[in-house]
């Protein structure tokens, strides 16, 4: 019988490997009991029995094999996840949500702030494998201790341009300093045709969107991946509703044109 992922029924997944990524941030590489196909930008519900369940975007691209979740320790479930070791089990269900549009139709501009780099990493590595795009990726974090995936991102050349920036640098930092929009202003050319993909804290969205609009993007070509603390992930529990949309089924990826009136998500 086909499993109905539109329910609270979870599969088992084994943690194969855990990698320290940054301060309070670890990546968990997991192997579910069944293969779970997903698209960049989709998310899964991970659970630990006796602690609870929470939604997490996938950080790996679909071709990378194990599912990779990059998780910041910030609450009950994430703290318990951080205490787990390789070989231990998780509950997993999904994938959920719509994911990013995979054809940028021109230049792809990827912007990740803090832990928001996780879902766009999936897209970035997917695009790098799939096509020959002009691709910009801006990866911003609070400080050098908080930057994600730096070692994985610095090898690219040619039409792939990666910009790392931190709000406050330290003496060893060789890359950009300042909020992410400063780097965008500095490097990003006017874009005639293309798509922007953004994920980060709500406070970042409005500034990033403004910069993208200045650079020539149309509102409907700027995609934001929103965060909400959904309990079901299939449109029933109500926690992620915005207006008549549900972040879990209608999102988590929305074009800016669709959600620009929802102030709570664009603080």
């Amino acid at each position, binding site marked *: 019988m086909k499993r109905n992922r539109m329910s609270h029924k979870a599969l088992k997944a084994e943690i194969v490997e855990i990698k320290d990524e940054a301060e309070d941030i670890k990546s968990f590489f997991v192997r579910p009991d069944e293969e779970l196909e997903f698209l960049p930008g989709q998310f899964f519900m991970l659970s630990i029995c006796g602690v609870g369940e929470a939604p997490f975007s996938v950080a790996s691209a679909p071709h990378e094999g194990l599912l990779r979740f990059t998780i910041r320790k910030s609450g009950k479930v994430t703290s318990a996840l951080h205490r787990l070791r390789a070989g231990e089990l998780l509950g997993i269900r999904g994938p959920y949500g719509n994911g990013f549009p995979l054809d940028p139709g021109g230049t792809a501009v990827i912007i990740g702030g803090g832990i928001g780099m996780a879902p766009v990493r999936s897209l970035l590595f997917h695009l790098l494998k799939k096509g020959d795009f002009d691709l910009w990726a801006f990866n911003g974090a609070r400080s050098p201790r908080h930057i994600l995936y730096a070692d994985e991102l610095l090898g690219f050349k040619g039409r792939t341009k990666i910009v790392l920036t931190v709000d406050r640098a330290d003496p060893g930092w060789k890359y950009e300093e300042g909020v992410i929009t400063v780097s965008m202003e500095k490097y990003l050319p006017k874009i005639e045709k293309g798509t922007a993909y953004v994920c980060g804290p709500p406070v970042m969205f409005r500034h990033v969107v403004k910069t993208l609009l200045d650079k020539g993007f149309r509102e409907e070509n700027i995609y934001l991946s929103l*965060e909400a603390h959904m309990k079901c992930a299939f449109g029933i529990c109500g926690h992620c509703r915005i207006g008549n949309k549900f972040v879990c089924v209608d999102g988590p990826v929305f074009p800016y044109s669709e959600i620009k009136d929802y102030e709570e998500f664009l603080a």
Partner: protein
Amino acid sequence: MLKINVQALRKITGAFLEEGKTVYAPRHLGMGDFAFDRIENPDEFQIEGFVNTLLPPKEIFFRQMETIGRFGWKEEGLCEDVEPEIEDKVLLGIRPCDLEGLLLIDAFYDRVDADMPYKRRRKKTFIIAYACPEPADTCFCVETDSGPWAKRGFDWQLHGLEEGIYLLEVGSEKGRELADRFADLMEKAHDGDLELLEAKRKETLGKFKKRPYIKRGIGNIKKVGEEVYRYLGDRCFRCGGCNYLCPTCTCYNVADIGTRRGERVLFWDSCQFEGYSRLAGDLNLRPDQGSRLKFRFECKLAEWNTETYGRIRCTGCGRCIYTCIGDADIDLFLKKASET
């Protein structure tokens, strides 16, 4: 229309019980309070002589708390699913506002193909509605097109003619079959009965408190200013009562109870609680009570409800009005909204 008396209704209820059907009907709890309860014998229910039950019968389908999984009993690290038990059931005495509430919850669930206890339980239900003869002060179903008699969603609907005597309106194929089966306990309604029903209905409509601001307020929902929400937010005690008593509220939370061995439970949540909109890292989408009330009122009344559900999702039952200790309820909200 058919005609039936309460003794015959009790006989039919007895037949349902004998067949192993579960019957839910209003029961007097004492002090004039009524609640839907599982009836063990046909003398136990009372469908008239009170306006409505304390809680809408939605909790029969959407339990206040229920176990959806168990962990630590067989295998470490795995939550085994617990399936809901499904009874062949009869819901007797549901009021039109609460019936419309159930239909709206159905429509809400039908948007997505989710496998949830509510949906499973809802399938095998024979609904006998009771048209209201007498509104309470807080009732406003006449303004929300959901009463005082039901227009859809019932198998049978009872209309009181005098105490213990009802006209029975058949509303579905299943209702027709069962009416045929119990034909010897009913009779055909006469013209005089129908005239009496019309007169009764007019009388009922005349008893509703006039609330012209309800429709006007709903029409203004988009224009309501932040100051109205702030004003109501200051009055709100954040008790969640409006959600818990609402026949259309469906939000729930999930939590694990127990550590090494325990249960995963699903339970009613309230959008009026701070934790409802909390995100990771101490962020909150709706940090103040005004924005939470706005979230609730829009959920019930915003114009997009009509596009998706065919109507607004308030059925005028009035429970949130009488339960609100801060007077931050939908009645005051719509008064303010109508002045916008």
